């Protein structure tokens, strides 16, 4: 966190303006950055540290933020870099050819669910807690792909920039993540004997 160059001397008025801009543009995304940090670290205390460092770094380098661009995307990129540096991790090397096998496997999960009468679990039940747990258990880089695109509603393009991979890689990671989640939730449904009768469906 040492800076190589001393910060330029800026007049007080423009400092206040910069601070106000920072507060207006960057601070509203704190919850989003926290969720992303939590999905990366899977640990409350580590997530706190990553968010703290992300925002302090964002504040120090606020002059590099281009007004009018997507500030959340900029913060997520910093967040991921902070995380990678904190773990001294290499870039994930898991890469998949394409998402077709995962899409097909998800179709199989659905077919089995329909046969057993729990193909409407996503519509019928509050699966939020189970889903959140299943996402936490996903391995990287699938967890980041699902978190960025499906939870945080970022575009493939934004997720690609944040994860520093091509868009096609976002797609394949996302599809693998979705497939693994659906397999996990289907096996939970089977484990708990969740059928229309057991769940009180009038179908």
């Amino acid at each position, binding site marked *: 966190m040492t800076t190589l160059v001393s910060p330029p001397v800026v007049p007080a008025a423009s400092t206040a303006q910069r601070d106000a801009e920072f507060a207006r543009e960057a601070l509203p995304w704190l919850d989003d950055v*926290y969720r992303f940090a939590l999905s990366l670290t899977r640990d409350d205390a580590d997530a706190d540290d990553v968010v703290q460092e992300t925002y302090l770094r964002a504040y120090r380098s606020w002059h590099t933020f281009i007004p009018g661009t997507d500030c959340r995307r900029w913060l997520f990129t910093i967040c991921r870099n902070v995380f990678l540096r904190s773990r001294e991790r290499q870039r994930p090397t898991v890469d998949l050819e394409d998402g077709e096998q995962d*899409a*097909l496997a998800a*179709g199989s999960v*659905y077919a089995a*669910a329909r046969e057993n009468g729990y*193909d*409407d679990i996503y519509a019928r039940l509050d699966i939020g807690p189970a889903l959140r747990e299943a996402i936490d258990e996903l391995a990287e880089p699938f967890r980041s792909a699902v978190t960025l695109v499906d939870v945080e509603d970022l575009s493939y393009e934004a997720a690609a920039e944040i994860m520093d991979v091509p868009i096609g890689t976002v*797609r394949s990671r996302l599809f693998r993540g979705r497939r693994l989640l659906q397999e996990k939730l289907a096996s939970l449904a089977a484990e708990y004997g969740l059928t229309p009768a057991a769940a009180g469906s009038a179908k």
Partner: protein
Amino acid sequence: MSAPKQDQLESLGLSASCADVVRHLWDYLDDQLTPDGAARLKAHMASCAKCRGYSDYQSCFLEAVAKLRAQFDAPDSLRSKLAEGLKSEGCSCWDEVTKAKANTNG
């Protein structure tokens, strides 16, 4: 990767004409298909109840995941710590960190 094998499709109870839906539904729901491709899938689903059922199922799944976004926020302890950090950096708007929270709650 080649097209799904015929026996794989049959085990899903699908005809070959449903293959595109199984392979590309996520692309369709994510708005990643070309207009032509999207129109083709849409037209097929309009006439295929099985594929509509699958599309509903995947849409519900994605909605359930998207709902998680509203379910947990940064803890207050983190907000206080960040406010202190920004204050020590000389940021004059440090107290906005906790105010922003108050606003979203109110």
